[in-house]
C-alpha cells in the first residue's frame, strides 16, 4: 500500500513534466495536466481511505549518496488521513480548474498553472509521507516554491507580484524556523530520522524550544495570527482552484507538521495547550473580524481560513491540555475535532472559493458591493454557496457543526474535569468558539445576502450567468461531502479516531467511542421532517388563497433603486465598531465646511493591524539599515585600500597581541 502511495507523487511529477513538454498547446496541456491529477487522486483517495480505516502502518527506506540520513518514508493513520484530505481536495480542485482555466485561454499561457499544480500536490503528499526531517524539509520547500509560482500565475498584475513577494518572505521566514527546529532535534538525537527523533530524550528546555519553533515555523504556513499576513494577499492572487487548494489543504500542512512534531516530542506540559488556545483564540477572532471588514470576496474567504485555522488550533489546545491533565478522552475529543475540522474546512472552503471563482468568472468582479441578486442568475452556484456558508458557520446539519461540536464537548468536559487552575482555559475555548461562531454567521449572512440576494448593484451583476459543468460538478461534490459528514458524523469520526487516540496518548485498541454521535443524524432527520411538514402546511393553507407578487415595501418611498440597498460595509459596521482596536479601524471624515459646503465625506476603513502596525514598520526599518550598510561601497578606491589596511592591522593585533607576552 505504501508503495502505491509513494508511486502517486512520482506520477504527479511525471504529469507536471508531461504538461511542461506539451506546454506549447494550452488545450493539450490542460487535458494532460487535469487527467494526470484526476487519475492520481482517483487512485489516491480510495487508497488513503483504506489506509486510514485499516490504520495500516508501514515504512520504506532507500539509500542516498549525500552524507545526510536516508530516504525514509512511512504511513500511519495521521499521514493517511492528511493524504486523504490532499487527494480529495486536489482532485476536486483539478476538475474545477479544468473548467476555470478556460477563462484565461488565449490571454496567457496556461502551462505554469498546469505544471506547478501537480507538483504542489506531489510535494504535499511527500511532506505527509516523509519520515526523515531532511526529506520533509525538501518536500516542504518544493511545496512552497510550487505554490509560489501558482500564486504569481497572473504575474502581470502588480498586486499579484506584491502578494508573491510577501508570500516568498513568509515561507522563507517559516522554513528558517523549521531548519533550526530540526537541526536542534537532530543535534539531540544524532539523526534526522523520525524514529530516532521520537526516541530521543529531550531536555525540557529543548522540548519547549522545539515546540515554540514548530508553532512559529509551521504556524507561518498554517496562518496563525499574526503570522498570517501573507495569506489574505496570496490566496486571492492565485487562480481560484489554486486558492481552493492552498486554503483547503496546503495551509493544513502546517497543522500536520505541528501534530507530527507533537507526536515526536513526547508528553506535553500543560502550558503548551494554553499557548495553542491563545493562538487559536486570537487567530479565530481576529480572522473572522478582518473577514467581516473585507469587500473582496476571495479576500474575505482567505481571512476565514485564518479563523478556521484558529478553530483547529483551539482543538489542538484542548487536546494538549487533555493529555497533560490526564484526561485522555478530553484530549481525544480535542484532537479529533481539530483533525476533522481540517478535512471539513478543506471541503467547504474549497467549495466557497470555487463559488467565488465562478462569480468572478461570471461577473468579472470580486467586489461584494457591486454584486447582488445572483441567486436568480446563478441558482446552482448560489445554492451551493449557501451550503458552504452554513457549513463554515458550524451550523447543523452540515460538517462544520460536527467538528466544532467535538471541540465544544471536549472543552465542556475539560472544564469540568481539569484541575481547578486549568478549567478556565477550557471554558475560554467554549467562549472563543461561541464568539467566532456568532461573528462567522454574521459574516456569511453578509457575504451570501449581499452577493446573492436583493437586486443586482451593477450591470456586471445583472449580466451574470451560471458557470460550466466541470465547475458546477466540482462544487456539487464538495457540497455533497459536506452534507454527508454532517449527517453521518459517526462515520466521519472513524477517519480521525485512530490518530486522535494516538495523539491523546490512548493505548492502541482502547479507542473511545462516542455513542451520542448517533443523536446528530436523528436531529438532522427531525429537522428535515419538520421543515417539509411546515412547507406542506403552508402549501395547503395557500392552496386556494391569493398569492401575489408586488414590489418590496419601500416604507412609503415611491422609487427605490438598487443602489439604496444596504451595503456590505454598513452591514458589518455595527459588529466591527466594538472591536475597532483589533480590526485596526481608521476614520476618514471631512465634514461640510464653510457657509456653502460643497462636499463632505465620511469613510470608515478597517485594516490588518498585524500587517500595518507590526510587520510593515519592521520591514521598513530593516531596509533602512541595509541602505546604511550600502554606504560602504562609495567608489573611493583610496578608502577601499584603507579597508584592507585596517583589516590587516586589526587581524594582526587580534592574533598577535595575545602572544606579545610570550
Amino acid at each position, binding site marked *: 500500500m505504501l508503495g502505491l502511495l509513494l508511486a502517486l507523487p512520482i506520477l504527479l511529477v511525471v504529469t507536471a513534466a508531461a504538461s511542461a513538454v506539451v506546454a506549447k498547446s494550452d488545450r493539450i496541456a490542460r487535458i494532460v495536466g487535469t487527467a494526470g491529477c484526476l487519475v492520481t487522486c482517483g487512485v489516491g483517495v480510495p487508497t488513503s481511505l483504506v489506509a486510514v480505516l485499516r490504520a495500516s502502518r508501514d515504512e520504506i527506506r532507500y539509500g542516498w549518496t549525500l552524507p545526510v540520513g536516508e530516504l525514509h518514508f512511512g504511513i500511519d493513520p495521521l499521514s493517511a488521513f492528511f493524504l486523504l484530505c490532499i487527494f480529495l481536495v486536489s482532485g476536486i480542485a483539478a476538475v474545477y480548474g479544468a473548467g476555470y482555466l478556460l477563462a484565461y485561454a488565449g490571454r496567457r499561457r496556461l502551462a505554469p498553472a498546469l505544471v506547478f499544480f501537480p507538483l504542489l500536490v506531489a510535494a504535499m503528499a511527500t511532506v505527509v509521507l516523509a519520515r526523515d526531517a531532511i526529506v520533509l524539509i525538501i518536500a516542504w520547500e518544493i511545496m512552497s516554491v510550487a505554490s509560489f509560482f501558482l500564486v504569481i500565475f497572473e504575474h502581470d498584475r502588480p498586486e499579484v507580484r506584491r502578494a508573491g513577494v510577501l508570500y516568498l518572505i513568509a515561507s522563507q521566514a517559516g522554513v528558517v524556523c523549521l531548519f533550526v527546529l530540526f537541526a536542534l532535534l537532530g543535534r539531540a538525537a544524532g539523526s534526522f530520522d523520525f524514529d530516532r527523533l521520537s526516541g530521543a530524550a529531550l531536555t525540557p528546555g529543548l522540548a519547549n524550544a522545539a515546540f515554540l519553533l514548530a508553532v512559529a515555523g509551521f504556524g507561518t504556513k498554517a496562518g496563525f495570527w499574526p503570522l498570517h499576513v501573507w495569506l489574505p494577499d496570496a490566496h486571492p492572487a492565485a487562480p481560484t482552484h489554486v486558492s481552493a487548494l492552498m486554503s483547503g489543504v496546503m495551509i493544513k500542512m502546517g497543522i500536520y507538521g505541528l501534530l507530527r512534531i507533537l507526536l515526536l516530542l513526547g508528553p506535553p506540559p500543560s502550558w503548551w495547550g494554553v499557548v495553542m488556545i491563545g493562538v487559536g483564540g486570537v487567530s479565530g477572532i481576529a480572522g473572522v473580524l478582518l473577514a467581516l471588514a473585507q469587500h473582496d470576496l476571495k479576500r474575505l474567504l482567505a481571512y476565514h481560513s485564518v479563523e478556521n485555522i484558529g478553530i483547529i488550533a483551539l482543538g489542538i489546545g484542548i487536546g494538549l491540555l487533555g493529555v497533560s491533565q490526564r484526561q485522555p478522552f478530553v484530549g481525544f475529543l480535542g484532537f479529533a475535532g481539530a483533525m476533522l475540522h481540517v478535512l471539513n474546512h478543506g471541503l467547504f472552503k474549497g467549495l466557497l472559493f470555487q463559488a467565488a471563482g465562478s462569480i468572478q468568472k461570471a461577473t468579472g468582479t470580486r467586489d461584494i458591493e457591486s454584486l447582488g441578486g445572483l441567486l436568480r442568475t446563478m441558482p446552482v452556484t448560489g445554492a451551493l454557496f449557501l451550503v458552504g456558508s452554513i457549513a463554515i458557520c458550524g451550523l447543523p446539519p452540515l460538517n462544520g457543526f460536527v467538528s466544532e461540536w467535538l471541540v465544544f464537548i471536549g472543552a465542556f468536559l475539560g472544564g469540568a474535569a481539569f484541575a481547578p487552575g486549568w478549567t478556565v482555559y477550557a471554558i475560554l475555548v467554549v467562549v472563543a468558539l461561541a464568539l467566532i461562531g456568532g461573528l462567522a454567521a454574521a459574516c456569511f449572512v453578509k457575504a451570501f445576502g449581499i452577493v446573492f440576494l436583493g437586486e443586482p448593484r451593477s450591470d456586471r451583476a445583472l449580466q451574470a450567468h451560471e458557470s460550466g459543468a466541470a465547475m458546477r460538478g466540482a462544487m456539487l461534490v464538495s457540497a455533497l461531502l459536506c452534507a454527508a459528514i454532517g449527517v453521518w458524523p459517526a462515520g466521519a469520526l472513524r477517519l480521525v479516531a485512530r490518530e486522535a487516540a494516538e495523539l491523546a496518548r490512548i493505548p492502541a485498541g482502547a479507542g473511545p467511542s462516542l455513542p451520542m454521535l448517533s443523536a446528530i443524524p436523528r436531529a438532522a432527520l427531525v429537522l428535515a421532517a419538520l421543515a417539509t411538514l411546515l412547507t406542506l402546511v403552508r402549501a395547503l393553507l395557500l392552496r386556494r388563497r391569493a398569492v401575489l407578487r408586488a414590489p418590496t415595501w419601500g416604507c412609503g418611498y415611491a422609487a427605490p433603486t438598487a443602489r439604496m440597498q444596504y451595503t456590505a460595509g454598513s452591514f458589518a459596521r455595527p459588529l466591527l465598531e466594538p472591536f475597532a482596536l483589533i480590526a485596526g479601524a481608521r476614520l476618514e471624515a471631512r465634514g461640510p465646511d464653510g457657509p456653502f459646503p460643497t462636499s463632505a465625506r465620511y469613510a470608515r476603513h478597517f485594516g490588518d493591524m498585524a500587517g500595518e502596525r507590526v510587520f510593515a514598520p519592521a520591514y521598513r526599518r530593516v531596509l533602512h539599515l541595509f541602505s546604511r550598510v550600502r554606504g560602504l*561601497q*562609495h*567608489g*573611493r578606491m*583610496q*578608502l577601499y*585600500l584603507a579597508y584592507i*589596511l585596517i583589516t590587516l592591522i586589526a587581524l*594582526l593585533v587580534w592574533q*598577535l597581541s595575545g602572544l606579545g607576552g610570550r
Partner: protein
Amino acid sequence: MSGISELLLLLVVVLDLAILTSTRLTTCIRTSALQGVLLASLPATLLFEAAGRAPLHVVALGVFLLLLKAFAIPTLLFRAVRAADVQHEVEPFVSLHVSVLIGTGLIAISFWLATVLVLPRLAPSAMVVPAGLSTLLLGFLILVSRRQAVTQVIGYLMLENGVFIFGQLLVREIPLAAELAILLDLLVGVFVMGIAIYHISREFDHIDTERLTTLRG
C-alpha cells in the same frame, strides 16, 4: 659585521619618507628608482656578509633587479606621466605634514611588530623586519592618501619592495624560477597599470583617481 646591509636598509626607510614627502611626481619616480638600486644590491650584500661570498645566480638576480627596478619600471612610469602630462600630486587627502607624522607612527609600529616577530633564525641583519614592514606600511599609506594614479603605482611599488625585503631572508628557499615569475609579475603589473593610466588620462583627461567614483552600491 653587517654594517652595509644595515645602512642599505636604513636608507631604504629614509627614501620611503622622502617619497612620502615629495609632491613632484618625477621626484617620486626618481626616488623610488633609487630605492630600487639599493634593493637590487641587497641580496648580494646580505649573502656576502653572511657567507663571505655571493653565489653567481644571486648576483645575476641582482643585475636583473637593477634593470627592472631602476630602469624598466621608472621608464614606464615616466611614460605614463608624460602621457598624462601632470607634474604635481594634487592636494592629497591628508596634508604632507600629517602624512609624515602618520608615517613616523607607522615606522614605530613596525619596530614594535619586529619585537613581537622575533626572527627564528639569526637574521643577516636586525633591520630586515622593521625596514620591510615600514616600507610596506608607508607604501600603503601613500596608496591610501594620494590621488594621482601614478603616485599610487609608486605606493604599490614601495609595498612590493617591503615584501621583497622579507624575501631576502629566503633567497635560498625560493627557486630562481619562482623568483623570476614573481618579478615578471611585478613588471607586467606595472606595465598594465601604465597602460591603464594612459587610458584613464585619455578617457578623462586627468589621472585623479579620486574622481573615479561612478561605480557605487
